[in-house]
């Protein structure tokens, strides 16, 4: 029997009319300009989230939630399960790279004003997914039930607890009681493997459908997209490339590079397990949250105990909440960009925030 891709394609096409999809993909174009490189970070984020799902499912086969079992089960995965060490290290590294890629993707969209009409919903779903990614990170960090994770969760949930009125109930809800205990671990496990993935899948579906439906946003000023060279407001000539196969294959190429990077990180810098959490032990020195929470943690450390009439920590948390909320709603208050006009103010805010995050993260790290 002669094997041929053509025959397989015909066989499937006969049943599900693949030609419609191919025709749709054939009409999709991706703009090419000096900022095109940022388009790839959406794809990288998607790839890393797929890796998280796959490695997460594999870890689920051996992971046991519970105060007495969690740490030991990770130890078992790391030492006894074939390639368990690799899967766990990749899961941990990919989680961090995912947050980084998503962050870069978010800022590239922000600076490119890609959130402007008609892509407000794409931005909103993206932002919600980003917050969920932080939730994934926070909840997943506790699951090995080691000393660092335990105290970081204690500090993290303590911070949530200082929010006026709703803080305490939120803290108790997150912890499953007054203190971080095995109940917190079970709760975080539930969030990490069931609640968050469910919501994330829905949001990702909407996000991808919107991207496919609306196409890639072009830098402000582009008038035409389909294959014609036009001048952007940056004064350059712009053209496009077919989504399939050009962009998709480039995406795949980058994914392979990321996969290579992940393998190197996992082998050369295996994710450490540390000491098992001891509920009665004093907190070790230098407790720090994951790097993506560090700028907020450091800000709270710098804030004075009392700021005017409000507690310094409460002020910091409320300020971060407000900034995050305004950030999420940027498509609705940046009217200029929606009208196709330049808005330097948005750029200045973005640059300030990026610099703030970088500097405070470095200060927190050192």
């Amino acid at each position, binding site marked *: 029997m002669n094997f041929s891709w053509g025959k397989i394609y015909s066989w499937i096409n006969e049943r599900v009319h693949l030609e419609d999809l191919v025709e749709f993909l054939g009409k999709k174009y991706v703009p090419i300009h000096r900022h095109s490189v940022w388009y790839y970070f959406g794809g990288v984020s998607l790839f890393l989230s797929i890796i998280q799902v796959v490695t997460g499912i594999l870890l689920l086969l051996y992971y046991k939630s519970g105060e007495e079992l969690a740490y030991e089960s990770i*130890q078992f995965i790391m030492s006894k399960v074939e390639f368990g060490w690799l899967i766990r290290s990749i899961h941990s590294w990919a989680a961090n790279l995912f947050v980084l890629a998503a962050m870069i993707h978010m800022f590239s969209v922000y600076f490119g004003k890609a959130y402007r009409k008609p892509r407000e919903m794409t931005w909103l779903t993206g932002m919600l997914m980003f917050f969920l990614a932080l939730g994934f990170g926070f909840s997943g960090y506790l699951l090995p039930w080691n000393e660092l994770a335990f105290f970081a969760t204690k500090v993290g949930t303590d911070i949530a607890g200082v929010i006026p009125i709703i803080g305490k109930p939120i803290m108790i809800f997150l912890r499953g009681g007054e203190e971080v205990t095995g109940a917190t671990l079970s709760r975080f496990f539930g969030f990490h493997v069931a609640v968050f993935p469910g919501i994330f899948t829905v949001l990702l579906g909407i996000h991808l459908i919107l991207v496919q439906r609306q196409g890639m946003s072009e830098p402000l000023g582009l008038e035409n997209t389909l294959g014609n060279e036009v001048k952007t407001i940056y004064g350059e000539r712009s053209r496009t490339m077919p989504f399939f196969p050009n962009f998709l294959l480039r995406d*795949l190429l980058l994914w392979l590079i990321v996969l290579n990077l992940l*393998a190197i990180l996992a082998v050369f810098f295996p994710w450490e397990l540390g000491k098992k959490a001891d509920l009665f032990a004093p907190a070790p020195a230098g407790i720090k949250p994951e790097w993506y929470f560090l700028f907020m943690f450091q800000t709270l450390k710098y804030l004075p105990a009392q700021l005017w009439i409000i507690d310094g920590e409460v002020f910091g948390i409320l300020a971060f909440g407000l900034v995050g909320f305004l950030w999420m709603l940027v498509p609705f208050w940046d009217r200029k960009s929606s009208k196709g006009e330049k808005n330097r103010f948005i750029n200045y805010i973005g640059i300030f925030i990026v610099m703030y995050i970088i500097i405070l993260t470095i200060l927190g790290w050192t």
Partner: protein
Amino acid sequence: MKTLSIIVLSFLVSLRVSSQQREDKCMSCHEVIGDNVAEMYKQDVHAHKGISCSGCHGGDPHMEEMEQAMAVEKGYIGVPKGDDISTVCAKCHSNAAIMVKEYNSILSRNQLEILQLSVHGKLSVSGKERIVQCTTCHGVHGIVSVKSPSSPVFPTHVPKTCAKCHSDAIFMRAYNPALPVDQLEKYHTSVHGMLNAKGDHKPAECVSCHGSHDIRSAKDAKSAVYPTNLPATCAKCHSNARYMKEYKIPSDQFKKYSVSVHGKALLEKGDIGAPACNDCHGNHAAVPPGTESISQVCGTCHSLNASLFASSPHKKAFDQKKLPECETCHGYHEIVSATDELLGVSPDAVCSRCHKENQNQKGFIVAKKMRELIDSLESSDRIATLLVSDAEQKGMEVSEARFKLRDVRQARLQSRTLVHSFNLEKFHEVLSNGLTITGVVKSQGQAAIDEYYFRRWGLGIATLIITVVAVSLYVTIRRIEKRQTRQE
């Protein structure tokens, strides 16, 4: 000249008259009525210093009439009771102006303050006064200098003075039912006590170790007899070569003890489980342990070693030669941590002192074999530890192997204890167990290291494959785009 003589004579006459006017009426009256207290007070150190009864009781000793002399308006307080007793003493004894300027005294002026902080300064069962007042130990009316052999706090009298309360079971029960009341009896059996009873005031009595005004509970870390402080307390006398000269005993015990395994544990690490002087010599009944009792003394802590030794063939041999058991091999005050070097037939090994190749040959063979076995376990343990550490350094998860190493340490510890049985068969059994565990650990450590290199190779191959696929993909993209450009 005549005028000058008249002036001097007049001055002397006026002095005589003044002296008659200032006569101590307290003493004269109380002598007349035959009060024994007045007789006793004549011998009192305070009377010798010219202090009248009014010094403590108040009143005016120069008044003729009793009602006037003992009038409250004149400051008369009667017989002080409870804490007022010590307060009356402290009125002068805590006052530098009186003690130094008037009496040229060198006594410390914080005795009351220190007494109040001491275990005796606590409230008595009545809750109204402290347990001990100055007069409890120093007496009343007949108080003499502490340097006087008739003083109740002179070294030869101290034991009895303390025993007034401390040997009274009913009295002591009210304060500390757990505290024994046989200290004096024990003390009489001690070397210190026997010399003290002979009138030698130099050997230690209660105050020498426990302090005087500042006595604290033996459980108080500040007490001179708290385990970590006790060796230094004993050394106050025992390390003083001049002081100890007449007793013909060495004065280097503290120096030796300080560098011993026990001394380091107690004095450097603060491990109060480690023995201080009293744990081997006794405290109130302190004597040097005799040849026969040494193993019993050591055996109170090292019980397993002692019982193994007692059932070993060495027991009979040591008894016959009247050799002290533990001390023969380990020494006494300068006992150092027992290492494997003590065992075997090398010149440093203690076994070789008695067992030679041509003398006591059986013991020679056993000692040699035991040393070989213990060395092989040590070497195997070292290799296993190195392998595990190497694997750990490479980032491998080897906690199980690391945990098993504890069993090896346990086997080594057990083997060192079993040496005291001098039974090669038992010794071999424990050593074999240890060697089996080290074998498992070594293979786990080696497997982890092999796995580490496997991962490196695996990564290399995987990276190569991914890179080849990536390059092929890049070439494909370039080809497709070239074709598209040509088509355009």
